[in-house]
């Protein structure tokens, strides 16, 4: 944990992260100034955040870890537990990416949409940052080669943001004769991006945009309960991939 402070001082001065913060700021500012209705603004921001945040979080984490590989080796040769090195890295990266999101998109959102919806949007953004940081750490720990690791990170992002929905629709049509609602809901819990979307849309209560899984969530759980469940599952998502990577890192050949 003592290392987290030093890792943070390094990441917070990283140019890529500063540019990312600035980009988020620019996008959210222009979205809110273009839309006269702040709810529409939140929806536009949501669509942006669902694409950009996972992409940048996973790629930034992947590249940072590969670039630090020699430094991680040096830390491992010091009298310190391997697990505390890996945990410090997750804290450092997760905190910095979340902070970038809060400064870049959160402040503007709170100015234009000062209510629980605004807060929920920020919380989802932070959770997505943590989740994709954690998934990226899992990807890097299993790939020794940097190019392969970055490729794998981009593929996971592509899978969660595009391919997953395709698979879902495919299954929906294939099994449309059967009662597959519950299975579909379970499936959507396997995709954090989908869950984040459902979480915000349930809050905004815009049924037209909710999509199939969102509508299912509402029918089965109601708005409030549906939000709690998707929120909890997102929390689990930010931990499980990281914990698996931690276990692997403890026994890894460096």
């Amino acid at each position, binding site marked *: 944990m003592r290392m987290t402070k*030093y890792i943070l001082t390094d990441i917070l001065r990283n140019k890529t992260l500063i540019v990312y913060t600035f980009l988020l700021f620019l996008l959210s500012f222009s979205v809110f100034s273009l839309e006269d209705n702040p709810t529409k603004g939140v929806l536009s921001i949501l669509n942006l955040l669902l694409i950009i945040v996972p992409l940048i979080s996973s790629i930034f984490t992947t590249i940072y870890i590969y670039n630090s590989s020699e430094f991680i080796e*040096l830390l491992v040769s010091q009298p310190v537990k391997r697990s505390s090195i890996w945990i410090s890295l997750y804290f450092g990266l997760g905190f910095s990416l979340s902070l970038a999101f809060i400064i870049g998109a959160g402040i503007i959102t709170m100015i234009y949409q000062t209510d629980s919806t605004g807060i929920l949007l920020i919380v989802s953004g932070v959770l997505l940052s943590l989740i994709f940081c954690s998934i990226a750490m899992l990807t890097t720990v299993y790939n020794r080669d940097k190019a392969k690791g970055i490729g794998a990170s981009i593929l996971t992002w592509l899978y969660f943001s595009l391919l997953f929905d395709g698979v879902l629709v495919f299954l929906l049509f294939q099994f449309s004769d059967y009662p597959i609602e519950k299975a579909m809901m379970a499936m959507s819990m396997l995709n954090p991006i989908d869950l984040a979307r459902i979480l915000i849309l349930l809050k905004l209560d815009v049924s037209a945009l909710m999509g199939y899984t969102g509508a299912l969530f509402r029918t089965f759980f109601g708005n409030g309960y549906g939000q709690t469940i998707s929120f909890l599952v997102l929390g689990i998502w930010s931990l499980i991939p990281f914990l698996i990577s931690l276990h692997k890192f403890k026994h890894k050949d460096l």
Partner: protein
Amino acid sequence: MISIENISKSFGKQEVLKNISVSMNSNECIALIGPNGSGKTTLIKSILGMVPLVTGQILIDNNSIIGSYQYRSLIGYMPQIGRYPDNMNIGQIIQLMKTIRGNHVITDESLIDDFNLRQIFEKKMSTLSGGTRQKVSACIAFLFNPKILILDEPTAGLDPLSSEILKNKILVEKGKGKLIIITSHVLSELEEMISRVIYMQDGHIRIDASINELLEQTGENRLGKIISKALN
């Protein structure tokens, strides 16, 4: 001090260390040499716990290193390639190392002064040359006055003057009765320091003898020649 017992290590199908047993004691300066891919770095990494052991064991001061991390406070390690986070400066790296070891430890900062690093403490790591980063690695290895020093290609990339400073430091530490393990491909620069040679090939130890024994056996006085004669 370090006692290695029957360790083997494979990366996938490739067997890198094949049932190696060797012991190393204080007051020794060991040259660990051998061709590329002979298993030198893997042996060092096993001692440092960077490569977890599957078979065999390593004892340091009679305690097994398996499952332990505290023993590494006895070791100073200088890696072959030193790369550090881009946005930290030299001072922060050294401070970080002190924080890890506990700030109460008495430090040996003579190398920092000899290399004149204090003037550039504020410089970011990304702006430093390879040689300067190598100096930082050396300072970290010697910083905590460890009983065991493991130096992987210590002078590669250093200018002749700095290389000389580092060699002198190694000799000073040798005089204090420490165990020093050096790998290098430049045999000539090892000659003046070492007391024992371990030559590895294909995951085995081919030669393990004190330098005096080798001198007598071969009748040569240059390390390169000694090794090639001893191998035949």
